[in-house]
Structures are given as C-alpha cells and as structure tokens.
C-alpha cells in the first residue's frame, strides 16, 4: 500500500512544479519547430555536403567581381559568397590587403579567377565555377550526367527522425535525479527512510512516478510529432519503443544518482549516460546506410522508428525490447542495491563490493545474485562490443576472424570480472556461480541475436551451454588460483565454437 501513496506523492511533486512543466512544454515546442526546419534543410541535400544545406557557412567567402555578366548575379544567389562589385585596380588592391578571397574578372566570352593561394580561395573558385556552370547550361541538359541516386534524402530523413523523437527524453528524465540526489541533500530522504516503506519500495516509487510522467507526456508527444510532419505507419509500436528507451534512460539516471555523491555529479553523470545511450542507438541505426551492415542496425530500437518514418511495415522488434528490459532490470537492480547501502545515506560512493553486498541482501541468495550478475555483465558488455565493432570497422574492412576474437575476448573478460566480484572460494562454488553467470549471459545474448541469426537451435541452446561452460571453466581456474590461464582457455573454447558456427573450422 505504501508504494501507491509514495508514487502519488512523487508524481504530484513532478506535476505541480509549474516552472519545470513550463520548460517541458517550451522544450517540446522547440523540438516541434526544429523537426520541419531540419527536414527542409535535408531536402536541399541532394549532392554535396550536409553543411551546405545548413546555414552555417553563410558568406564565409568574399569575392571581388569586375565586369558585367549574368554569372555574377548567379554568384550573388550563393549564400556562401559575399560579392563586391568593383573595378580592376580596386579589386587587386583588396586582394593584396587580404580583404577578399579572390577576384573574378568576366566579360561576354571569358572569365578569369585570381585567388590568393589559400584554401578558401579554392572554395571561392568552385563557387564561381558553379555560378558560370549554372548560367551556361541554363536550358541545356548536362552533357554527361552521372549523378547516382542513392535515395540519400529519404534515408537521412528517416535517420534523423528517431534522434528528434528522443531528444525530449533528456528533460523528461530529470525528475528522478532530483528526487534521489536532491532529496538526500535536503534530508527529505531521511523522512522517507523513517516511513514503514522499504528502501526498495521508495526507489521503485520514484522510478514508477517518473515513468508514469513519461508515459503521459509520450502520448501527447507522439501525436504532436505526427502533426509536425513525421508520420509513422504504426504509431503505437513507436510509442512502445519510445517508452522502453525512456525507461532505460530513467533507470540509468536512477542508477547514476544512487551512485554519485552529489547533485552536481549526478547531473553530469546522467547527461553523459543519456547522451551515450541516444548516440549509441543513433549510430547503430546509421548502419542501415550500408547494405552490408544493415542487419546490425536491427540491434538498435531506433531503427524501428526510422523504418516507420520510411513508410515500411517492419515487424516489431520484440526480442530487442526483451533484451532492453533485461538491461533495464540490471540497472534497476544495481540502483536498488546502491540505494540500500549505508553508503547512499552518507553520500559516499559505494564500492563494487558494497554494491554486490547490497544486491546479495536484496536477493537473499548467492546463486540468485550470480545469475543476476550474468545479466549485469551482459548489459555492460553489449555497448562495449558495439564500440569495438565500430573501431574494427574503422580500422579495417570487416575481418571476421579479428572481429570474433575481439568480441569473444570482451565477453569473457566481463563475465570473468563478474566472477571476481562474486569471489567463490571452493571449486564447486566456482563452477556453480561461473555457469550461472554464463547461463544468464547466454540467455540475454540469444534473445538479442535471435532475429539476426536464423539457426534457432544452435543459437538458443548450444551457445548458452558454451557460455555456461566457458565461465564455469574460469570459475574453476579462479578458485584454484589459475585465473589468467583459465580466462585464456575460456576465450579459446568460446572462439572455437564461434568459428565453427561461421564455418571456419
């Protein structure tokens, strides 16, 4: 019962903060104005860079022109160029004083451009060239047109959509930081701790209140966004994805505020974590651009939103949502653990050990905690893996062997870290906790990968066994003081299986 009244109290705190609500409304308004403007800017983007579509390089070059020709009028239409009409003597004087980037002397059958040997002169020259080109080929079709059409415009539009849709979440997830960090600084938390409600209930009430707030605004937001020109073929699916991402950001904010020592730190950490979440989803979605990596783009929930804008009827990424819920659950579990430690009340940063002890207290059993640690390890591993994939992609063309080796090593290292936190003493404990961590990890991985790889049996059961085996192996090694050797062995075992899977062995 306590939890309901707590939620009501928290929700009232959010909704009755007039200035906060006002800034939320203004923020939504700004985003709504931005959407059509940005979409319009993108529609200029046919060839050339996106920057030439955005008005950031207005009049960055100045050209002195001598003579009369329609090309000069055409040049004046270029927003990047500032045109000064003058005579020849004056023009070269200006060029000498570095007041202009180039001089363009033109008559009815010839044009000469004089630069001053800097990079911007080259930019000026290409603007002049474009202006002359437009005048000369006014009615004539290009002699040799090779412009390839990649549908870039609609692609960029669909990629921008999730980004614009998700930006208000930065504001919407602020109340949770306020109600955790700020309540502690103002000693309100002490009153809450004195109520019959348990610490778990107090934190959950705060999260639920913030989530209800986001759900409420989400309905308004999705409808407003559709009015401003982004149309989704399945608004309800988009709404669900939106809520799951909101839930993820809110639970991450709950975690960082429970871990940090002051409001300042919590605000900074939350802005970093929310930026990382949104950027990560966004950059994975951009993998849609290359057909070779389009499949990987399915690992981001933002891809679904992008596809919805494109008008495609894509299937709802249920597995991905399940996986995100696992990540959210791990974040919440850690947040509650941190919230329950004494370190929280004294505004001291809890160590990893203390956090694990808090988790142990919460779950009341070491085996359950080991299973949970598998999920936690998975939640940390997947973003690290995405960054690793990006780096490898940047360095070389996709090299399957290198990619697999790095990914497997990251997985095994994080699972091993989980074991070192659990600290099993005897060999049988090592095996048990190791395989539990591996099992939980494998379970989450299978859920994530199911829509990508269609070898169902292999993906669903065998990999879980492999994960359990390899981490169990590390558990044995760890309890027998052979941690490093067993880690290498675990990596080799896992790598061998993955290589077998892709057909190298």
């Amino acid at each position, binding site marked *: 019962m306590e939890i309901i009244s707590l939620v009501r109290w928290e929700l009232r705190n959010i909704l009755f903060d007039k200035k906060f609500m006002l800034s*939320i409304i203004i923020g939504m308004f700004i985003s709504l104005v931005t959407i059509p403007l940005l979409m319009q800017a993108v529609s200029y983007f046919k060839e050339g860079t996106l920057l030439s579509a955005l008005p*950031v390089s207005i009049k960055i070059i*100045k050209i002195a022109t001598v003579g009369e020709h329609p090309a000069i009028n055409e040049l004046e239409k270029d927003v990047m160029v500032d045109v000064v009409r003058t005579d020849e003597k004056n023009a070269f004087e200006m060029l000498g004083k570095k007041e202009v980037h180039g001089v363009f002397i033109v008559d009815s059958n*010839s*044009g000469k451009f004089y630069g001053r040997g800097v990079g911007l002169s080259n930019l000026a020259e290409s603007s002049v060239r474009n202006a002359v080109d437009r005048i000369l080929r006014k009615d004539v079709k290009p002699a040799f047109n090779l412009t390839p059409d990649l549908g870039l415009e609609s692609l960029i539009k669909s990629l921008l959509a999730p980004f614009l849709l998700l930006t208000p979440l930065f504001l919407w997830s602020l109340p949770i930081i306020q109600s955790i960090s700020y309540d502690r600084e103002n000693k309100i938390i002490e009153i809450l701790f004195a109520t019959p409600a348990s610490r778990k209930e107090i934190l959950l009430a705060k999260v639920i209140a913030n989530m209800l707030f986001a759900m409420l605004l989400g309905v308004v937001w999705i409808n407003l966004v559709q009015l401003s020109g982004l149309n989704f073929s399945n608004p309800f699916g988009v709404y669900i994805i939106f809520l799951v991402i909101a839930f993820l950001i809110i639970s991450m904010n709950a975690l960082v505020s429970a871990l940090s020592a002051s409001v300042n730190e919590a605000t900074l950490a939350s802005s970093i974590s929310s930026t990382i979440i949104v950027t990560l989803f966004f950059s994975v979605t951009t993998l849609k651009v290359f057909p070779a990596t389009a499949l990987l783009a399915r690992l981001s929930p933002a891809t679904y939103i992008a596809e919805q804008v494109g008008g495609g009827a894509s299937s709802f990424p249920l597995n991905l949502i399940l996986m995100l819920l696992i990540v959210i659950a791990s974040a919440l579990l850690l947040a509650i653990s941190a919230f329950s430690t004494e370190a929280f009340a004294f505004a001291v940063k809890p160590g990893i050990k203390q956090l694990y002890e808090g988790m142990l207290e919460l779950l009341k059993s070491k085996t359950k905690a080991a299973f949970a640690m598998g999920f936690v390890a998975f939640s940390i591993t997947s973003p690290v893996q995405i960054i690793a994939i990006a780096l490898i992609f940047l360095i070389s063309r996709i090299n399957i062997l290198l990619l697999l080796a790095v990914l497997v090593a990251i997985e095994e290292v994080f699972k091993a870290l989980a074991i070192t936190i659990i600290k099993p003493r005897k060999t049988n404990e090592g095996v048990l906790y190791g395989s539990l961590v591996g099992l939980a990890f494998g379970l989450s991985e299978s859920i994530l990968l199911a829509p990508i790889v269609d070898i169902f049996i292999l993906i669903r059961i065998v990999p879980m066994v492999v994960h359990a085996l390899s981490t169990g192996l590390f558990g044995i090694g760890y309890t027998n003081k052979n941690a490093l050797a067993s880690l290498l062995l675990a990596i080799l075992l896992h790598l061998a299986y993955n290589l077998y899977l892709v057909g190298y062995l």
Partner: protein
Amino acid sequence: MDLFKKESKEVISDRAFLVSILIQFITISLLLFLYSTYTEVIHSPNLKITVAVDTNNTILINRLESAGVRVILANASNENANAVINSSSGEVKTDPTSIFSGFAIAKINSISKELSFDEALEEKNFTFSSFNLANENTDFIQMAYGLIIPIAIIMPAMVAMSLAIQSILMERKKRTIELLLVSPLSNFDIILSKAFPYVLASTVSSIAWVFLIMRTIQVSNFLLLLLFEFFFSLFLVSVSMIISAKAASVKEANAISSLVGMITITSIVIPYNPLSLYFPAVMIARIASNALDSSIVIGILSLCFAGFLAFAMATKSIGDMRNNFV
C-alpha cells in the same frame, strides 16, 4: 579578490570541469583527425578505388585515372569494382558492401560535373581560367570553418554555462550565500568573482582549442575570435547566474539550462534570413575566414552589449536576493 581566488580554485579543481576539458579535447582532436583523414584519403593514391566503365571513352577514363581511380573495362570483369558506369545512359551502379563506394561516388560525381562544365564552355564559346589557387585539398574546407571552429568556440562556453548554473544554487541550498550577502562585498563583487572564473576558464580552453586547430586550418582574426568567446561566455555564464539565483530547484535550473542549449542548437537549422549573419555559429565562421567587415563589427558590438546587459541583470538578481534577505 579573495572570493575570486577561492572560486577560481574551486572551478579548476572541480572534477566535472576537468572531465569536460578532456571530453572537449577528445572531440576537437577527433574532428580534426576526421577532417585531415577525409581530405587525405579521398586524394590518396593508395586508396584502391576501382571503377568499371563500359565504353572506351578516353576523356572519361583519363579524368578518372588522374583522380587516382583504377579503371577497368566493365565487360572484362566486374570483380572488386566499387562502381560500374554505364556511360550511354549515365547510370552508375555501386557496390554497397564496400565502404569505399562512397568515395567512388564522390569522385565520379565531381568528374561528371567537370566534364559537363568543359562541354558547356566549348559549346557557348566561353573560356574560364583560374590562377593562384592553393595547392592543397579543399574538399572539406566548409566543414572546417562551418563546424570545427564554431564547435571549438561554442563548446567551452556551453560547458562553462552548465557548470556555473550550480554555483549560486548550491550556495543557496547550503545557505552559505547568506554569509556572502551580509558581508561587505558589493553585489558586483559577488557576481564578478562568481562569474569570471568560468568566463576565463572557457576563454583559456578555447585559446587552446583554436591553437590546436590552427595547426591544420588557417584561422584569421585570432584575437577577435577570443574576444567573441569572452563575450559569448560572459553572456551565457551571466544567464546561468540569473537562472541559478532565481530558480526554485536544481531540476528547474537544469531544465532551463537545457532549454537554452536547445535554443542555441536550433539556431543552426533556422533557414537563411537577413539575421542569419548574426547567429553565433555563422559569426564565428565568418570571423575565422574573413577580414574584418561591418557585419562582424556590428555582431561583436551587439554581443558585447548583450554580455554586459546579462552581467548587469545578474548583479541585480543578487541585489534582489540581498533585499529579500535583509
């Protein structure tokens, strides 16, 4: 002066500030790295871009080869070709599985433009010649002036703003502001010693970033850029002082500062209009690329005015607080 020293020490030893400096450094160097890599890579002879052409069009093949592209005949073998050109229909097919196809498209595009331009010149009996151009690759120079330099100037000011938002708010929460209010320090002294450490920190860090950028990109009016940075951060920091003196809660202050950030970013996408010249990003790009002209002077003067106005309002908000308190 003692208060100023104490505040400066706090700013410099603030972990959040140090982290932000690190993040800014990484961002700027990453952008510069991308800038020079893109420029280098697209002209590198080592870049193995292969284009297949269906006919023996010597002009096209010569152009492609001089742009550093390996040309093969389409009929012979299409293996490893990043793009296949059908010169009669003008259609280009690319191999989307290779990330280098983007470079192939860019090169084919610029060559196709050059060819059409030359043909049009010939047809209309017009000669075009250019002299004294820089002997360097300038494909991404717009990105340098329109993006990298504005980021190096705007980012430190935004960071200073988001850090400064907490300073008075925290003193209010801890009730240490009351000590300041009853002290003989004037409103002006308090705001000066609160705001200036942030303004100076952001100006100094942007000096460092601009120096970093100047190693790759030519920047004119260095001093004017710093003046811009100084007034811009004075304006933003003063605004955050006003917010933190007036806001009722941390949440509210954060929400308002996020809004100010959103507005600054939105100003980038507002379509071209006569006022565009005075938007911060545009002004920075113009200062860095142009000689001093009237619109730059007007822009800096109005920014200077806005900065001092905001500063005066911040002083007044401390005065209000003192009146309410005493």
